[in-house]
């Protein structure tokens, strides 16, 4: 059992991992990493390592789950047994089921699902290592995987969390801050449409703090969005200079 640190932000305003209150953890994004999936992406965000594979649009099995006038998105969020310090049973937990639902609902607004009726798209999220903010990192990668699958979208969905730690609103909580902090506010956002597609909060915040946290999270989202676009372009940019 680790000892709980007394303060999560020190006198110099630095957090346990040395970050300032509005600093993102390091991020790495890669698109098209799974040869068998129709679309895929891999993200490292802080110590989070998450892989997403997308299959579809394709016929749904079982067929009775398909809808006559639209494409159905199914989302499975799953954590590997070794992703957390205490081994987690591979069986889906209630938390994973809820996260599958909210992640799906964060991606649905981005997709033109009336274009392909009677089909389904499966989004499989596998968390290989978790360190706070897995749902946000998952959404960021899942959106890239959907784009990689060639599914027409209104915008990429990007996600980032903010929260309250000690007495300050901070950006991008890591695991200890998530567990020991005062509040955690994950936000998913489509920048071109100014649309929030996921918003949750646990903890206690005044309405003013909530607004501050949402704005901080959206700023984080915008920075990550630029990285998403870069990752997509890198994948599809091929040999630059070709001899004439």
């Amino acid at each position, binding site marked *: 059992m680790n000892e709980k640190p007394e303060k999560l932000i020190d006198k110099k305003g630095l957090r346990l991992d040395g970050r300032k209150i509005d600093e993102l953890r390091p991020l790495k994004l890669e698109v098209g990493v799974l040869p068998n999936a129709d679309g895929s992406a891999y993200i490292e965000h802080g110590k989070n390592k998450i892989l997403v594979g997308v299959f579809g649009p394709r016929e749904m099995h079982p067929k009775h789950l398909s809808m006559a006038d639209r494409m159905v998105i199914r989302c499975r969020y799953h954590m590997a047994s070794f992703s957390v310090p205490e081994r987690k049973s591979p069986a889906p937990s209630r938390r994973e*089921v809820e996260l599958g*639902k909210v992640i799906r609902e964060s991606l649905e607004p981005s997709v033109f699902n009336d274009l392909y009726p009677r089909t389904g798209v499966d989004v499989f999220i596998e968390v290989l290592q978790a360190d706070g903010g897995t749902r946000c990192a998952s959404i960021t990668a899942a959106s890239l995987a959907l784009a990689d699958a060639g599914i027409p979208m209104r915008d990429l969905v990007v996600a980032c969390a903010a929260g309250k730690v000690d007495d300050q609103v901070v950006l991008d909580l890591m695991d200890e801050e998530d567990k020991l902090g005062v509040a955690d506010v994950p936000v998913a956002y489509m920048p071109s449409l100014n649309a*929030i597609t996921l918003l949750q909060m646990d903890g206690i915040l005044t309405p003013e703090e909530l607004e501050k946290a949402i704005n901080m999270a959206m700023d984080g989202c915008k920075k990550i969005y630029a990285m998403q676009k870069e990752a997509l372009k890198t994948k599809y940019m091929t040999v630059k200079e070709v001899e004439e």
Partner: protein
Amino acid sequence: MSSLITRVRKLQIAQTIEKGTRLDGRGLMDTREIKIEQGLIQKAEGSARILLGKTQIVVGVKIQAGEPFPDTPNEGVQTVNAELVPLASPTFEPGPPDENSIELARIVDRGIRESKAIDTAKLCIEPGKKVFVVFIDVYVLNHDGNLIDAAALAAMAALLNTKMPNYEIEEGEVKIKQGYTQLPLKSHPITVTIGKIGNTLIVDPILEEEQVMDARITMAINEEGNICAIQKGGSGYFTPQQIVEASKIAQEKAAELRKKLDW
């Protein structure tokens, strides 16, 4: 999870709402009539039944001795489960909890847990070994929309009604004595769910409106007017401005309801 609603009806609902009223005569910010009955299940330590319009939910609270979680060895445990009972709606099927009932349970749980409604520090029997576990079980008996608010209200009402058995430790075993004490509560959170149809926000959506709305946002508010849980749901989205507006509405409605219920 919806029974069929015709396109014509959907249009009708959307158009009426755009004009500022709803098909059941309510204003955009009006909650349906609420009736709460407590103590109906004598075999439970606490219980409550709510009628929110035609939505009907019964919550039973059972208290048993159990083991604490390793990271909170001296605190009681709270656990919430929700059942979307098949008799409540033609769309509910028997079986293990699906994502809707899991989400419902976890939202209700969050509101109670984050507001520290249950004073879990007072539920310790033997530090590190035995604590009281508070089982909150939500049974949806009729679905006419806004299960979240109804369930959260009924759960809180059931907790207010809950009595813990008196006990003593005899040779390491918990022995139940005569008499009861009220479950120690520190807060009475109230949950408000707001739906979005087109660009209009409405409070307490009825089932038909839920079938038309493209997103909902739920906020749990405590006595100080602070927010202790938020959950956006549905396959639509909110603009940041709409979120701010929703949080103001949630605070107002929570305060209004708090006064009415005298919580």
